[in-house]
């Protein structure tokens, strides 16, 4: 009994999160049922859509890529006390910058591809510096500023494909990027592309930065306690600005990878809300780089699954955002679950005593 308790206690945050997410999906099931849709039917189409065959599965994986990179973007900010809700806008600008670099020049692929990805990251990063300035110099709440900065980014890219860059085809978009700027497809006939390696690199980079370097240690110190960080010689504003930049750059990179691996151009409204999903992905991933891959897989499956679901069972695609909201809500409320959890696995008395001491 003791070892079992210990096992569950040590992994408390993981299990709590799983419980919270499960709870969220039960709530979603009830909403479906209450609005006259069969939740079990929905699950069937969902699973079929996400993993039904090779094509669907690889499509799911191809959605895990932007979700993971964007999730890392949110995570890097959040670990340094920066709540970057502007990932959607940074991702759009990054995608646009990389698309422009992709079609405007033709270079050897080993220069062109890195260059276009870099352009995306740089665009996103620079846009991330706007809320950074607002926060560290002017004290503007970054949740508010980043969320509002999504609007200008959307309108601006919309304006570019509509009125500045020549329109090709029926949908507003930039011209196609050169072959040399594309990430190769890994499995013929699917959307699974080499961006998966970029994703893995990004995850390892984030882990290495946060847990193995002095810079990352300082960022985490700022994230937990700015005052203490300041008292111990860590330049808090500088680190936060860097986190804003890096977070924006990762968001821009996510957009660039989508352009280079999936659409081969900037397509107006191509992002199905990856930027907003990234928040959920990062929070469910417990702000841990490897956790983000796992949670991105869940939400990637959700993205592809819901497409099929909306076609066959008449469930609107808006369900994705709804699920996001409910999941974040449940994850936000997980502390109370933590209380119950600790009571179960630690014994009520010990729990009460510890709570008393911690006050």
């Amino acid at each position, binding site marked *: 009994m003791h070892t079992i308790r210990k096992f569950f206690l040590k992994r408390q945050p993981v299990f709590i999160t799983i419980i919270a997410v499960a709870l969220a999906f039960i709530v979603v099931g009830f909403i479906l049922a209450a609005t006259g849709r069969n939740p079990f039917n929905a699950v069937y189409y969902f699973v079929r859509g996400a993993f039904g065959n090779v094509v669907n599965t690889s499509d799911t994986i191809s959605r895990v890529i932007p979700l993971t990179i964007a999730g890392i973007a949110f995570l890097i900010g959040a670990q340094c006390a920066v709540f970057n809700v502007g990932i959607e806008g940074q991702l759009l600008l990054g995608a646009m910058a990389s698309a422009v670099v992709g079609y405007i020049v033709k270079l050897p692929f080993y220069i062109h591809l890195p260059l276009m990805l870099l352009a995306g990251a740089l665009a996103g990063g620079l846009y991330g510096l706007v809320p950074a300035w607002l926060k560290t110099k002017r004290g503007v709440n970054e949740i508010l500023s980043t969320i509002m900065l999504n609007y200008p980014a959307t*309108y*601006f890219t919309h*304006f570019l494909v509509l009125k500045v860059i020549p329109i090709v085809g029926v949908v507003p978009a930039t011209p196609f990027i050169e072959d040399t700027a594309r990430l190769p497809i890994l499995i013929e006939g699917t959307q699974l592309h080499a961006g998966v390696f970029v994703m893995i690199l990004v995850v390892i980079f984030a882990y290495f930065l946060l847990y193995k370097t002095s810079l990352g240690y300082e960022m985490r110190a700022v994230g937990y306690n700015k005052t203490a960080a300041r008292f111990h010689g860590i330049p808090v504003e500088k680190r936060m600005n860097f986190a804003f930049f890096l977070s924006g750059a990762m968001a821009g990179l996510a957009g660039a990878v989508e352009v280079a691996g999936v659409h081969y151009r900037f397509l107006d409204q191509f992002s199905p809300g990856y930027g907003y999903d990234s928040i959920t992905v990062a929070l469910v991933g417990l702000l841990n780089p490897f956790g983000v891959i796992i949670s991105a897989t869940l939400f990637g499956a959700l993205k592809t699954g819901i497409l099929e679901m909306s076609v066959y069972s008449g469930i609107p695609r808006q369900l994705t*955002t709804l699920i996001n909201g*409910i999941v974040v*809500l449940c994850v*936000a409320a997980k502390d109370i679950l933590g209380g119950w959890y600790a009571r179960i696995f630690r014994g009520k008395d010990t729990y009460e005593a510890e709570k008393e001491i911690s006050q």
Partner: protein
Amino acid sequence: MNWSDTLQSIFTVTLLASTIRVSISILLAGMGEMITERSGVLNIGVEGTMLMGALAAALGSYFTGSPWLGLLAAGLVGMLVGLLFSFIAISLRSNQSITGLAIYLLCVGLSGYLLQIIFEHGGNSPMVNTLPSLHMTFLENVPVLDPIFNDQPIIAIPVLLIPVFLQIVFYKTPWGSWLRAAGENPKALAVVGKNPVKIRYVATLCGSFLAGIGGAYLSISQTSLFSENMVAGRGFIALSAVIFGGVRPGGVFLACIFFGFMDALQKTLQTVIPDTMMPRELFMALPYLLTLLALAGFIKKSGGPADIGNPYLKESR
């Protein structure tokens, strides 16, 4: 082009009238959020609450035929959303910012989802009955006042009076004292036998009620239908106005009117300046940029409640 003519065609009394029209929803949400923040609760989900209010109003008006019942429905649905927020942010003491964000996402998703489920076709609801406008005969021959205030939506005038009402409540009544105390130092309130949790709940519910009404104004007064994401950032602009206005009725009122004026100006400019000179898409980005600019020019930290954003933990069990 003759510049003085252009300027004259921009700055007219019509611009002021339209300022009032576009300010109403921001004003309602801003006043509501101000009440909430005074009690020490930061609700970032106002945008979502407004969306749900807008949908509820359209549905209420559509199914009953009465826009007034729609308005009521919007307020009640707003309170329901507020209740959910309060439960998680106040009772469970979760992080208020993240909870607010979740509420926003949830409401965006839920309003879109319900719209599809109920009307089963793209982005809009059918047309619904709207609230009447208010014609005041005694103003008919008064210059300036007549074009500005006459024939405004019926809820406009009462809404313009809310700041005065709140100023009195905040600073001249015991409830105002308790509300402010809950936001400044809830423990001080608890030791004199008042329950800060209850006060924060009431304040959040009042705030959400007003936000719901603010949403309703968009769907059953300013337009006559609900469309997906129709609040379009007004909730966030209202949040900015609360900060900009120093969480005080007068200040927040002026900030809301200022942002409303910017929006009205932007709309007027769109009609006056040709698209080739300044494209429509860039105009549409203006209100958000101006709001951020206003916040950036604002000297940080002035007079907000001391305990905002912190969950209140009772000392007893």
